[in-house]
């Protein structure tokens, strides 16, 4: 064996090690960040949003429209509009002691929220507003709505007086980008989830 052949084999071996290292890093990079809600979150959480099926509101539901027709949010019978920020709409199903059991809200996009950062933005924003124990349960991007596409997150948190679980979506439609929120207290979630999901599925902006 010549010195040249030995040198070449060493070089080849070194290149092989380099390739193996890069492949290992690529494997970690593809799974780690995605699992925490990054670019792959849509695939991982798609099952959590399988209920999302764009459709007109059910018969008998009331329809609230944001100013200038930027969005339309339907809410079920028995729910009633409640005080909300100017330019937004909220409806609630009231529970014992005047507390909100179920909640729907539509708000024009107004901050730095984007389809790409929605899940992290929303949970961070909830924490910033004083909610405690904010936990992301699922997230997805590229979801189809009646009038556009959206990003959604399912999370839960505690306020000063109650615990809530929410579905919060940023929907980019043909007229505007609007946030729609559907929330309920955890012990009512199983009962109210079908209504919350129908409200989001029928949301248009």
């Amino acid at each position, binding site marked *: 064996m010549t010195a040249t052949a030995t040198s070449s084999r060493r070089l080849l071996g070194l290149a092989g090690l380099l390739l193996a290292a890069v492949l290992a890093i690529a494997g970690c990079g593809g799974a780690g960040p995605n699992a925490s809600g990054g670019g792959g979150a849509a695939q991982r959480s798609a099952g959590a949003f399988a209920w999302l099926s764009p459709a007109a509101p059910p018969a008998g539901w009331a329809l609230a429209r944001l100013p200038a027709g930027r969005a339309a949010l339907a809410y079920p019978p028995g729910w009633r509009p409640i005080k909300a920020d100017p330019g937004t709409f*909220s409806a609630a199903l009231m529970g014992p002691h005047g507390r909100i059991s179920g909640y729907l809200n539509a708000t024009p996009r107004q901050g730095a929220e984007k389809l790409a950062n929605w*899940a992290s933005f929303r949970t961070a924003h909830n924490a910033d507003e004083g909610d405690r124990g904010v936990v992301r349960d699922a997230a997805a991007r590229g979801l189809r709505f009646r009038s556009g596409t959206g990003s959604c997150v399912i999370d839960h948190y505690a*306020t000063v007086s109650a615990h809530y679980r929410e579905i919060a979506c940023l929907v980019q439609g043909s007229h505007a980008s609007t946030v729609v929120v559907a929330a309920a207290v955890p012990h009512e979630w199983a009962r109210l989830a079908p209504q919350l999901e129908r409200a989001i599925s029928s949301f248009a902006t």
Partner: protein
Amino acid sequence: MRTKLTRAVATLFALAALLGGATAGVAQATGGTHAHASRAHHKKHHRHHSRIPQHNGGDHDSDNNGGPSDGDGNI
């Protein structure tokens, strides 16, 4: 023999470089979801926009009083 080995090494290096670039792309695309970065951006944002008042700042809506969080992107 030497030519073949040189080509093989060159191919492996090219493949490694390509995969390295792809990995960096994934990291960059998902880096924006970091909670701290988002919060820092959010805090900065608060200083510039306040179209909808919160925290019992005059509107007293439900999310200022223990109710669910509404959809506003500001405080």
